[in-house]
């Protein structure tokens, strides 16, 4: 099962990102779990300097901006392949 994490400290952008990610998973019908990581120490361990960030199965695939549902779907499909 794919584990998707949204890295963010809780600002509205991160919430929007989480919603977009959940929508993308739903539209693709993927077996995946969408979680949010708000702990600073854990977020910084991923090495990103700008939130929000998107992590799929422990690999950082995007950071610094909120992605649209379509872009997230593209990344998820690429990862699933």
């Amino acid at each position, binding site marked *: 099962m794919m584990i998707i994490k949204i890295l963010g400290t809780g600002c509205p952008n991160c919430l929007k990102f989480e919603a977009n990610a959940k929508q993308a998973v739903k539209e693709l019908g993927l077996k995946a779990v969408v979680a949010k990581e708000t702990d*600073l120490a854990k*977020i910084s361990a991923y090495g990103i*300097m*700008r939130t929000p960030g998107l992590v799929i199965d422990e690999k*950082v695939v995007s950071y610094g901006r909120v992605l649209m549902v379509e872009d997230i779907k593209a990344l998820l499909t690429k990862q699933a392949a």
Partner: protein
Amino acid sequence: MQIFSWLNDVFLKMNWLHDGTGFFVVDVLKLDPSNPFVASLHYFLYDTLKIFILLSTLIFTVSYIQSYFSPERTRKILGHYKGLGANTLGALLGTLTPFCSCSSIPLFIGFTSAGLPLGVTFSFLISSPLVDLASVILLASVFNWKIALAYVFVGLILAIFSGTVISKLHMEDQVESFVYRKSELPDMEEEQLTRRNRVDISILAVKDIIQKVWIYILVGVSIGALIHNVIPESLITALLGQDKWYSVPLATLVGIPMYADIFGTLPVAEALVSKGVGIGTALSFMMAVTALSLPSIILLKKVVKTKLLMVFVGIVTSGIMLIGLLFNAFGYLLF
């Protein structure tokens, strides 16, 4: 020179908007312009529209430009420099690199764990919210270019100076240890942004910021309108008049805990100045609101220990007051 002042009048002062809203209030709504509340209404409509138009265009343009300057690239560049040069570059890049204040902590961690000196990171962190392209242009619109440029200049000096002092104090032990844990940037190509990406980011930035600040703008313009037309000048000069020694410290201390966007404070600053408050006092207020705020200090507390935090707040506060006093003393040269 002529064309410059024409551009200034059309795009920054928007005289046409002033006339248009005046027409609307007097000829369409048939209200009496000599009534101070009507004058306030005119001012409110003109200033609100002006700020929203400027805001949208500026944020879009600035975000587009800033999409070329990522913090990752900034970190790489800063790694090559040392000492005062590094602080200066840090302050300069701080103005160009975009970051929303929610990223300030990951950014701080990212810079520090990569080995950048604490002072350089602070120079960056101070200049970023303080001297920001969009607000500088707005300053030029509300006051004039000389003031806007002087503001940029002293803002950068403040950032560089504060960062240098923090470096000299060797307070590296005042940072939470998890920050120093070495971690590399994720193993992925720094996203190559297409032009479409940049446009999307810029549009998103406009929507995002308007959503965040519209209320501050409305409140700010309303207060400005009241100051212009309703609140008696004598009350204002009693509290904040140029000759009062406490005006700058008062303006600064009131501004520090406040969290408001700079776009909301500008109309208040402009109105105060027009009523005889010193330009330095107004700028101190604006700088205090932007550079320091309770939310950002609370966030910073998560990565920096109390002693360093107090040093940071202390230096920036003193710097702001000094700048305020300087502008009050020499500001007449800029008008």
